[in-house]
């Protein structure tokens, strides 16, 4: 019984986007530690290589790609084979009060946070490149999703994640025809470069942490472990769900 582990990713091939940094990088590493073979993609070849170096086990593949570029997406899909798992982590932040939420800014954020992951999933599914019984995980956010936290200046980012959350639910319903599960995670504030843009000062972040019942921001591992669960057979009957991982901040 010592080998019993329903959370194992052994024998699964998992594509992780946004794997050159943050939650994506850590998710790729944790998936490899759980026995998965990962295909990692990101825009920055050097940082992607750094992630690749930290992967455990054999057979992992790295493909530098910009998911907003259709040719890059074609190349990615051609090289990743049949997937058992897909984790859509690539995303950017944006702080902008409502009067400054121009469509240009929305287009930039939605291109990466909403259109790219949805389009990648659409094309993979249409090409039957996701195995029957596979698992898809969208990284959304508590910022903007139902039951979430609506903070000043976070409208563009939050709306992009709400759109993603909504499409996750629709995809869960439709992709179930091939027993593919589609879920999400809604992280609270996680210590990554995404929140280190300097607009919010360190003092403000520290004060914000005090509003979290668990008195800290998340580490990328906190989110990656939720993603591992959703990818694993332990979550075989879970679909259309978004797992809130936020240190209790939305209680």
């Amino acid at each position, binding site marked *: 019984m010592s080998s019993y582990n329903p959370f194992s990713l052994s024998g699964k091939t998992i594509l992780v986007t946004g794997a050159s940094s943050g939650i994506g990088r850590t998710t790729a590493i944790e998936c490899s530690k759980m026995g998965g073979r990962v295909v990692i993609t990101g825009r920055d070849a050097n940082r992607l290589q750094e992630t690749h170096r930290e992967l455990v086990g054999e057979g992992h593949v790295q493909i530098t790609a910009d998911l907003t570029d259709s040719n890059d997406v074609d190349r990615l899909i051609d090289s990743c084979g049949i997937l058992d798992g897909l984790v859509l982590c690539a995303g950017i932040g944006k*702080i902008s009060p409502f009067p*400054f939420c121009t469509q240009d800014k929305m287009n930039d954020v939605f291109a990466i946070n909403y259109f790219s992951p949805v389009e990648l999933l659409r094309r993979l599914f249409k090409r039957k490149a996701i195995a029957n019984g596979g698992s898809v995980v969208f990284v959304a956010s508590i910022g903007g999703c139902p039951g979430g936290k609506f903070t*000043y200046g976070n409208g563009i980012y939050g709306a992009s994640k709400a759109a993603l959350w909504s499409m996750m639910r629709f995809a869960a319903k439709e992709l179930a025809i091939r027993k593919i599960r589609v879920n999400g995670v809604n992280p609270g504030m996680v210590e990554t470069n995404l929140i280190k843009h300097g*607009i919010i000062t360190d003092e403000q972040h520290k004060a914000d942490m005090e509003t979290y019942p668990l008195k800290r921001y998340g580490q990328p591992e906190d989110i990656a472990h939720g993603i591992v669960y959703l990818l694993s057979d332990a979550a075989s009957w879970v679909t259309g769900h978004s797992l809130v991982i936020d240190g209790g901040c939305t209680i």
Partner: protein
Amino acid sequence: MDINTFIDNFAGQLDVTPADQIKPETKFRDLEEWSSLIALSIIAMVDEEYGVTLKGADIKSATTVQDLYDTVKGKKAVGT
């Protein structure tokens, strides 16, 4: 860029304080309506009007509207 236009742009982010009360020497954090949202609006206004990316720390280290203007002018000069 000039200070008078900057003051107009700054005052444009306020909803209660009359625009003519904003002077170069105004200590903006002492304004009754000053808030974290207004600070975000100032950062967004500076980005939109001057193409300069201010950080939260830049706002924090400034005391008067003139200080903020000088910071923006300095950053614009070095092209950040």
